[in-house]
């Protein structure tokens, strides 16, 4: 009997060896055919070290004496269609700019409009305010004519549209711009509130526009976006270094503690020197992070530096917010121009320079039609099943990234905080045995796919859910992509049970939708986690 087993084992070994050799050969042939260096490709890892640990070296651009926080948990989704930063970024002027009150969490459905339809507005002129928080002014991103106030269900205001001036922008003139050297904190706050710059400052918990009556524990700015196809934020600060520094100075006045700037040490390229030198400003500290997405999320950085606690709040803004505030105090102009990445496989990826809330139609002129007729099984008037030509969405346009952006129509506009438009294929197709075949061409964190062995494959993503919604079954998935000391699955269970005390105890206040977006992506059970989290946060906010 033992002889039989020995023979079987030896045969098995030989078979595995033959398989490996064959695989190695085929891989090298394929590599050389596609023009790559065949020696870079092997089915056998070239060193044990490569298999288990990623190199943790300190890049040359990190200044001496600075520590790097390595976040090992997370996942980079490699997608095709990343915008190329090498060419010159053209400034473009769209015809329409729409500011959407729905971008602000917790805003009442009908904000009070301050300008009548048909009248001219200047960039920075007050457009509307939330009746619940009348101090905070929302300003026009560009000068022009207010042409439309679009309303949704229950007369809720969804879009306020400006027909932009195509010539020079008329900037709103402020009466007294405070000087940083002499002004008190209150004066600065008052100016930011009335000038329309305040909505750029948001707070954790809840991701709402910061409460002007609070003094935050700290203020955070992340200078890199690790989300899939995200823009390179070094481009955003190029040429605006002075405004960036000024903006940080303003923020440093607003907190009793520090302004923390998060920097990326995982990239081959150095962050812009303006970012690196932020800590030369009084009250500003820099922190280096390395690791896969979501290391660039400000929520993750807050958690590791100065976490949100019950009864306290932390403020944050993005690079564009800092630059806008800086420009406002330097030049007295409300300049919302920002670098926006057009990414995704459905258009030619590039960067453009447009103002905030730009209508995207003009940017997508070269994109294929997003609808196409397709034969679909439907029921006719008599209830009989027939095949009919119906328009089917082929391309999805997203304001923001694929993980936490919002779908917009082709004539929609960029969100208030967004600096990225992503296009993905719509995934409304059937795939035979799609759940079984080992290579699907879809990104996945799972090791059940052979593609998991090769980390540098990039994918053409589509919006198919790749399976149906189920109850929570797997455990440990969410933890593996959330580099925080939080038990996400239990947070979600607490939300489902409406257990307010537990939600708060488990750290829901530290979480934002973008932080759990990756959990939602990897979720085997296809649960809508971001929606769930928002429900939980709303319950807490309203309680």
């Amino acid at each position: 009997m033992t002889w039989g087993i020995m023979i079987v084992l030896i045969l098995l070994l030989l078979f595995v060896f033959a398989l490996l050799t064959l695989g190695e050969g085929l891989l090298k042939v394929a590599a050389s055919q596609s023009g790559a260096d065949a020696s870079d490709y092997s089915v056998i890892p070239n060193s044990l070290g490569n298999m288990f640990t990623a190199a943790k070296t300190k890049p040359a651009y990190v200044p001496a004496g600075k520590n790097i926080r390595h976040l090992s948990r997370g996942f980079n989704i490699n997608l095709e269609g990343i915008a190329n930063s090498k060419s010159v970024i053209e400034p473009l002027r769209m015809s329409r700019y729409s500011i959407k009150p729905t971008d602000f969490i917790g805003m009442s459905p009908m904000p009070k409009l301050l300008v009548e339809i048909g009248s001219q507005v200047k960039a920075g002129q007050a457009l509307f305010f939330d009746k619940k928080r009348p101090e905070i002014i929302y300003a026009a991103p560009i000068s022009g004519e207010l042409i439309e106030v679009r309303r949704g269900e229950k007369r809720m205001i969804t879009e306020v549209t400006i027909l932009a001036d195509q010539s020079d922008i008329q900037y709103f003139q402020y009466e007294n711009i405070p000087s940083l050297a002499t002004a008190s904190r209150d004066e600065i706050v008052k100016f930011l509130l009335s000038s329309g710059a305040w909505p750029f400052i948001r707070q954790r918990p809840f991701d709402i526009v910061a409460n002007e009556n609070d003094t935050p524990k700290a203020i955070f700015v992340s200078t890199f976006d690790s989300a899939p196809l995200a823009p390179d934020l070094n481009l955003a600060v190029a040429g605006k270094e002075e405004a960036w520094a000024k903006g940080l100075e303003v923020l440093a006045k607003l907190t009793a503690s520090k302004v923390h700037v998060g920097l990326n040490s995982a990239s081959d390229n150095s962050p812009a020197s303006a970012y690196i030198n932020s800590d030369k400003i009084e009250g500003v500290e820099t922190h280096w992070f390395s690791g896969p997405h979501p290391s660039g999320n400000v929520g993750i950085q807050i958690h590791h530096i100065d976490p949100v606690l019950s009864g306290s709040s932390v403020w944050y803004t993005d690079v564009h917010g800092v630059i806008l505030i800086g420009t406002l105090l330097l030049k007295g102009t409300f300049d919302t121009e920002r670098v926006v990445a057009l990414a995704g496989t459905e258009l030619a990826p590039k960067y453009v320079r447009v103002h905030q809330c730009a209508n995207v139609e003009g940017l997508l002129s070269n994109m294929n039609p997003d609808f196409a007729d397709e034969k679909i099984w439907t029921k006719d008037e008599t209830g009989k099943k027939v095949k009919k030509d119906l328009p089917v969405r082929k391309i999805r346009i997203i304001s923001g990234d694929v993980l936490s952006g919002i779908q917009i129509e082709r004539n929609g506009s960029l969100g208030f905080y967004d600096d990225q438009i992503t296009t993905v294929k719509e995934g409304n197709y059937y795939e035979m045995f799609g759940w079984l075949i080992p290579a699907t061409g879809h990104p996945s964190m799972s090791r059940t796919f052979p593609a998991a062995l090769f980390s540098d494959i990039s994918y053409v993503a589509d919006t198919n859910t790749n399976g149906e919604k189920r109850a929570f079954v797997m455990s440990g998935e969410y933890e593996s992509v959330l580099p925080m000391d939080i038990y996400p699955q239990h947070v979600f269970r607490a939300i489902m049970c409406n257990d307010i005390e537990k939600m708060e105890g488990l750290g829901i206040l530290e979480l934002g939708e973008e932080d759990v977006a990756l959990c939602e992506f990897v979720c085997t059970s296809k649960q809508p986690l971001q929606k769930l989290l928002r429900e939980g946060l709303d319950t807490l906010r309203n309680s």
Partner: protein
Amino acid sequence: MAFIDFWKKIEPKKENKFAHATFDALFTFFFKPNLTTSGKGVHIRDAMDLKRTMIMVVLAMQLCYVVGTVNIGYQHFLALGVNTNIFEAFHLKLVFGLVQLLPIFVVTHLVGLGIEFYFAARRGHAVEEGFLVSAALIPLIMPPGVPLWMLALSIIFAVILGKEAFGGTGMNVVNIALLSRVFIFFAYPTYISGDTPWIAGLDLDNKVADYNWGHLMFNPLFESIGWSTFQDGHPIIANFSGATPLALGYQSGWAVTDPATGEITGGILSQFSALQMWMGGIPGSIGETCKPAIILGGIILLATRVASWRVMLSFAIGVAVMGLLFNVWQATHYMNVPWYHHFGMGGLLFALVFMATDPVTAAQTNTGKLWYGFLIGVFGMMIRVMNPAYAEGWMLAILIMNVFAPLVDHFVIEGNISKRMKRAKQYAKGS
């Protein structure tokens, strides 16, 4: 495209709930549905879904099925004392194994999936995949000769009371496969414990081989080719006991040596060698005997990260700690079995790889998983070695820990909560 048109044409009306649930289950088996993500939230989803997770587990246990099938036949012929080399009359062993196993497999799926479909239709949601893994596991943990009606009853009990009563896949508190086994264990103990149930096809009262029509219908076929056939009424060997290594261990420990001659006269080693126990040539439940097959399954589950290494590792540590303790203690015969040989006996490895790692019934937190696995190892060894009536413990240990897993998690969660609360209090004091 033509195939999908066929499916769309035969789609039953939504009002016919059972037919529609059945259709939906089959349709989603053939096609990944065309569902897309909503306009808010993530726009792309991971290619992984529950179906793929479940099929990975089922794939991982396929070798256990193959070896288990052959072993049913092998054990049967060992008891008869003919064809004792495993490759001798291999066709008889394979056919015998298949005739025993296939009905078990079919009944498990028919009964279990029938209940699943019924409840899915009643609740108006899709048929969930959870039972596919349970249905693949149940035959492997049954004795080869388990009566089919008993099997059906146990599955009805497990699926309805253990799963559907709690809300379906993902909501169950205890492992469904083990619940069905424990039902037989308590309701019909003689069919699943003791020395008699582990070898199929024997008439123990008359001490002869006992085949049914399922086996005998192959005889003409084999005769026509000139191969050996099933001999109904072939006598069993004289000193046949049917005892598993566990029973022998309980009776007289690892080895009893005659002090005069140095010969082994009792204990496990008198009947089975350590290698034999590892390779699977021993009586036992269908899938639990061949350890290399189970380990291969374990490697698949670990490499694909479907199962938690934390549970497996801490389970093994728990067993080792308890085994060492017993080796030192030496209070009974059973305690002198070397701790590492416990891994080769009974259902330990199968429980470690496939049962304890069930993500739904295990602890959910990473720290909790370590404790959960460790405590299964400890309790399982205690039940296996110290229990006077039943020389195996994993089924009971895992069921106990299934019930206590939420408690283990509770402590971990409370630790996290109190840490956060303390930090908040400190901050409030400081400011």
